[in-house]
């Protein structure tokens, strides 16, 4: 009887997560010592999917960005591109510029990461009309 109940509850949980794909990205990569480790490509794909949600709302954008910046990594250009496009859908230029500042700050002492990121993002920045913090003069105090 208990086994039947467990089987039911497990399938129930699985169906819930399937119908809300947006929630899946927020499952932070767990620190297991056992079990499958998520590869970098899977991580990137998960985050790109998260930001590519066509009807993403402002809260989800903020939550996603704040969570992403909380990780010990600089996001791949494709993730930042998806986030910037999400800002465009939300008509939020200020957040787009803030995202660029944040990823530059994430690179820390590694001064070569941010120029690479901007170089990869150039097409998107031009397409959306986003100015970099350097172009606006806010990269210096």
């Amino acid at each position, binding site marked *: 009887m208990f086994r039947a109940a467990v089987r039911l509850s497990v399938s129930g949980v699985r169906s819930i997560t399937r119908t809300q794909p947006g929630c899946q990205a927020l499952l932070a990569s767990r620190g297991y010592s056992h079990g499958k480790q998520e590869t970098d490509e899977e991580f990137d794909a998960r985050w790109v999917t998260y930001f590519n949600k066509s009807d993403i709302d402002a809260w989800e*954008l*903020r939550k996603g*960005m*704040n969570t992403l*910046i*909380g990780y010990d990594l600089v996001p791949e250009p494709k993730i930042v591109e998806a986030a910037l496009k999400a800002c*465009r859908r939300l*008509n*939020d*230029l*200020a*957040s787009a*510029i*803030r*995202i660029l*500042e*944040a990823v*530059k*700050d994430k690179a820390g002492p590694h001064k070569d990461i941010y120029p690479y990121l901007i170089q990869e993002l150039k097409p998107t920045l031009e397409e*959306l*009309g*986003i*100015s970099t*913090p350097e*172009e*606006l*003069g*806010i*990269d*210096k*105090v």
Partner: protein
Amino acid sequence: MLRLTAGRVGSLVARRAAVALTTSSARMASHGHEVSEAVDMSKPMYWDRREIPLPDKRYKDILTPADKSLKEKEKGPWGQLSNEEKLALYRLSFCQTYPEMNQSSSEWKTVVAGVLYCIGLTGLVIIWQTAYVSPPAPRTFDAEWQAKQVKRMLDMRVSPIEGFAAQWDYEKGQWK
């Protein structure tokens, strides 16, 4: 008589307490403009933090008509916004840029100066204390007493192998 004094003390205490309560409440009422407004922490707050690039709410809550028209323009292509307009939009949403947030201050100099000042003040207090407050030193600190004490220790052969008396040359009558 005991009852009277107790009653008098009781009334004094009660009056003082009542006075304190009333003056504090009156003070708060009359000096309301001096007390800063308590922030409602149950609502979303804004803060500039490196690890939270997009805070819970926009920095500027109240938008002037100019701001509102700028927000309308933001809905169109961003390429049409001038740099000043883009900056204005940024400053509407955020208080400090990342470089402004991260800038260091000279506060540490003030802190070190304050610490050294307090240590110096304490030193002065201690010097004054030893001069005026401390009782005279016991007689066991006198040079004559100390000399006699050393002689006694040597006669007793205190630590004769590796310690005190081992440093004394008993034949020559001097320190080794």
